[in-house]
Every structure is written in structure tokens, then in C-alpha cells.
């Protein structure tokens, strides 16, 4: 394995994070704080407890997921799209690096950033709502798996996109709606029965549910199902990346 290359790509991408520290970390934190003030504070004070948890606390895992998912996809997609756009990708293509090493570097960096972001938001949330994490190890596991999976999905989007519009398209029109409709701000028990069934088709629901379980020991679906679903996503994303690289799709003319 070309470990030097993985390290080079990883630190190059992390350097981008530090260079753009403000966009990378500060703005999601500010956005999250606004959510807490509006939903947790203003609106939440009018809402009953859900499963014995105050609404402000209930939405914390959902909000972290919302940020981790959107940031993972947008950050990872940009990370690989930009070299394609600027032409610097030639170097990676001509280097003795395998597809897996490229993925490890780019996706590893994007996931690292998302995990950091998730933890920062968690700390921020502590200012707004009483926090307890029932299963910290599981919480971290869900966070890391989700960050990695969605960074992979972002990477695929970045490979596929050949315009900036397309780069925005998937996160904005697919990921964000799925996240909002995935029980981020509510329990699906609050929905009418038909919509509950529809919600179960939303993959993001399983991520949010599992993550919330690691905080409060309750979720819309069982934690085993959540874990299985996220592993399924991971496998699908990895298989897609492998296919893209094998065929040279949109990378090699």
C-alpha cells in the first residue's frame, strides 16, 4: 500500500479544512445554535415532552445528524470535484495510488472533519439543552459510520458532477429533504399511520433513530435495524465507488 500517498492526500484535505476554518466549522455551529434557539427554545417550550425527553434535548441527535450528513456530502463532493474542475486531478491519476488509497485519503479527511463537527455541535448543544449520552461508545460508532458513509456518497456525487449545479443538486434536493423527513425534529409516532409507513422507506430515519437511541435509549426503530441499515449504505456506497474507478467513469478519458 502507498501509505505516503494516503497521508499526503489526507493532510492536503485537512489543510483545506484549516484554511477554510470559518466555513468549515464556524458557520455550521452558528446555524445549529439558531436551530436550538428557534426550535429548542422558542417553539420547543410549547411542545410536550417526547418519550419523557424535553423537546430541546430530543432534537439534539437529529440536529447533529442533519449537520453531519449535509456537511459530509458537501465537503467530500467538493474535495474531489474541485481538482477535476481545476485540472489538478491529473496528478492523482498519474500517481501510483490505488482507488482505495484515493478514497481513504479524500473520504477519510471529509469524515474526520464531519466527526469533529458533530462533536463541536454536541458541545454547543450543551449550552441549550440538558445533555446525557447513555451509550457514548455507540454514539461515537454511529457518528463515525454515518460520517464515513455520507462522505463516500459525497465523493460519488463529486465524481459524477460535471457542473457546479449538479454538485449542489443532490445535497439540496435529495439529502436535505430526506434528513428533514427522517425524524430529525420529531418522532414518527407523531405522524398519521400512512406517513409513518412512508417514513420507514426513508433511509435517513434509521440513522437518526439509532443515533438518538445512543443518547436516550429510545428510537423509532430498534438499534439493531439502524446499525444494519447504515452498514448496508456503506456497502452500497463502496461498491459504487469501486465500479466508478474500475470503469474510469468520468475520471479517465
Amino acid at each position, binding site marked *: 500500500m*502507498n501509505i*505516503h*500517498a494516503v*497521508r*499526503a*492526500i489526507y493532510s*492536503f484535505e485537512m*489543510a*483545506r479544512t484549516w*484554511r477554510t476554518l470559518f466555513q468549515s466549522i464556524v458557520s455550521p455551529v452558528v446555524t445549529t445554535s439558531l436551530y436550538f434557539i428557534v426550535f429548542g427554545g422558542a417553539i420547543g417550550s410549547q411542545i410536550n415532552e417526547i418519550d419523557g425527553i424535553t423537546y430541546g434535548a430530543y432534537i439534539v441527535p437529529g440536529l447533529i445528524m442533519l449537520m453531519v450528513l449535509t456537511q459530509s456530502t458537501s465537503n467530500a463532493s467538493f474535495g474531489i470535484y474541485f481538482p477535476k474542475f*481545476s*485540472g*489538478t486531478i*491529473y*496528478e*492523482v*491519476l*498519474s*500517481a*501510483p*495510488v*490505488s482507488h482505495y488509497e484515493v478514497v481513504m485519503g479524500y473520504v477519510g479527511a471529509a469524515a474526520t472533519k464531519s466527526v469533529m463537527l458533530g462533536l463541536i455541535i454536541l458541545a454547543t448543544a450543551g449550552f441549550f439543552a440538558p445533555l446525557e449520552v447513555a451509550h457514548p461508545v455507540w454514539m461515537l460508532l454511529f457518528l463515525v459510520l454515518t460520517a464515513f458513509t455520507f462522505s463516500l456518497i459525497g465523493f460519488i456525487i463529486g465524481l459524477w458532477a460535471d457542473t457546479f449545479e449538479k454538485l449542489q443538486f443532490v445535497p439540496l434536493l435529495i439529502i436535505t429533504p430526506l434528513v428533514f423527513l427522517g425524524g430529525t425534529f420529531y418522532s414518527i409516532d407523531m405522524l398519521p399511520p400512512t406517513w409513518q409507513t412512508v417514513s420507514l422507506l426513508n433511509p435517513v430515519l434509521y440513522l437518526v433513530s439509532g443515533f438518538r437511541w445512543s443518547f436516550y435509549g429510545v428510537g423509532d426503530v430498534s438499534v439493531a435495524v439502524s446499525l444494519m441499515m447504515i452498514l448496508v449504505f456503506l456497502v452500497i456506497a463502496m461498491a459504487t465507488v469501486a465500479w466508478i474507478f474500475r470503469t*474510469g467513469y468520468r475520471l*479517465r*478519458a
Partner: protein
Amino acid sequence: MDRNHLAAFQAGPPQTGESGARAQAPGSTEPPAVSIQGVSKTYDTGFQALRSINLTIHRGEIFALLGPNGAGKTTLISIVCGIAMLAEGQVLVNGHDIRRDWRKTRAQVGLVPQELSTDSFETVWRTVSFSRGLFGKPANPAHIEKVLRDLSLWDKRNHQIQTLSGGMKRRVLIAKALAHEPEVLFLDEPTAGVDVELRRDMWTLVRSLREKGVTVILTTHYIEEAEEMADRIGVINGGEIVLVEGKEALMRKLGRKQLTLHLHTPMDRVPETLARHALELSEDGEALVYTLAQDGETADVTALLQDLADAGIRFRDLHTQQSTLEDIFVDLVRDRT
């Protein structure tokens, strides 16, 4: 480029007189630096950019690939470097197949691309160190420093690339390509948009690389560059290799020497008495053009001048002209299209 360091470069073993003497001797058992066999390339658009290319680059030589815009130079280089897919044919680098042993071959190859694609926000030092890591080499700050000094980039090492001029960016790309100490270096139009001084520095750098045994393949539109530097020259046109020759042999074989005599009084045809000389009358009848034999036998010239005097032909001016590689190239490309 830093003059002191150029001097250090040149302080290597003395150069043998014959250019290209260091290049691999034909029939040597070592595999050639690059061996391209039956390579064709059709892009997704359906356009066929390369047609069954066969080309061998010897170890340690400087090979210039010439050809008009769209001839397929960049495509060919991209295939060898792994940037474009090789679907048809075979390419070996130092005897290793670029598809089977891609890790080995890519680690041995360096590329300076035609386009100035750089990471605008990175510093020179970081981007060059990145390249070394990417090609699987452990960090070696001393080597990076030497490369940057040789390219006069040392002072700029902490500058963001976007703050550099175009010529400086070109040097950064060269530094990146040299960061992992490649054995085979591709330079795709290294001197496009580069001023005269930098171009000469670049030539010196390329020669010094050859001194160290690096094989250099460059493309250029400046014929003088090929003439000045290359051991061998290949011409590609319309996706086909139309010629590969040692530079000197090419000049000898195709280089024409012409003597033009501007006449005092125009004539309408070459006089009978001069028929044995290879004379041509210009269209306006004002000049006689004499093409010398390739080996430059001068005995004929004496006879010609004698016969001219005997025929009473007077001329007011004369000049000689030797065709440059550029003329040869233009002829070649025109003939084929």
C-alpha cells in the same frame, strides 16, 4: 534559474562530444525507457486521436515529439502516464506493462502537463512535498530544497501559488514532477508562454537531467527547441507517427541547401548550356535557384559558376539558404494532409 546551482549541475562527468552518446545503444539488453506498441485511442466522442502508434524511447535520451495542434501528442503522453485509458495496444515503461505493473511504472514516470493546473491556495513548498508523498516516496526536505533551488523557486517556497506569475507556475509544475525523482520525465510543451531566459534555463535543466540518466520526452511547437536539445525527433500528425529519426540524420537527410542567384536580366527559360545543373527558374524569371546535393559537394558549384560566366549570365545578388527543422517539419505535415 539559480546560476550557482546550474553550475553545480554541470559539474557532473564531462559530456562526450557526440550528442546522444549517453543514450542507450541499440541492441542493448536493457529494456527501453518507453515502448509503445500498436496503441490506438478513440475518445468517448467517437473521435480517433491515435492510430496504431509504435514508438520506442531509449533510456537516457532526449526525445522531442513534434506535431501540429490536435496531432495527438498530449493524448499519447496521457496514456503512458495513466491519465487516459489504454484500450488498444501495449505500453511498457522500463520493461514493465503500464496496466499490469501500474504501481511500478507510475512511480518511475514524472509528468509536467501542458495546462497550468495548480492548487491556487497551497504554498509552493507544500504542493511540491505533496507530490513526493503522492508518488510513494518518504519525505525528503533536502531533495525538495534542491529541486526548488534549481528552479529558482526557493525564495518563493512559502508563497501561495496563486500569487506567482505564469512562468513561475510552470516551474512549480516542473518541481512537482521532479519531486519523486522520476526516471522518465514527460514535458508537455514546457516552454509554452515562457520567456527566452527561462526557456534557456529549462534547456539547461533538461540537459542536466539527462546527465543524471533521466530519459526526457518533450513536446514543443518551437522547432529550435527540438533542434537545440533533442537526440531524436518524432513527428506525429493526425494521430499517426510519420517519422522518427536521429536529429542529425534527419537534418542530413532532409535538410536542403539552396543557392539563389538574382539575375541582372530576367530570362524565360534556363539556357541549354546549363542543363546539366539542377537549376530552376523562379516564376517571375528573375532568379535561378540551385539545390545543392545533400552531402554538400562543392565541386558542382565551381562548375556551375564557370558555366554561368561562360554563358554570360550576370547576377546582381546571391544568397544561400539551409532548411531548418522547421521547414522540414512544415513540409512533412503538409505532405500528409
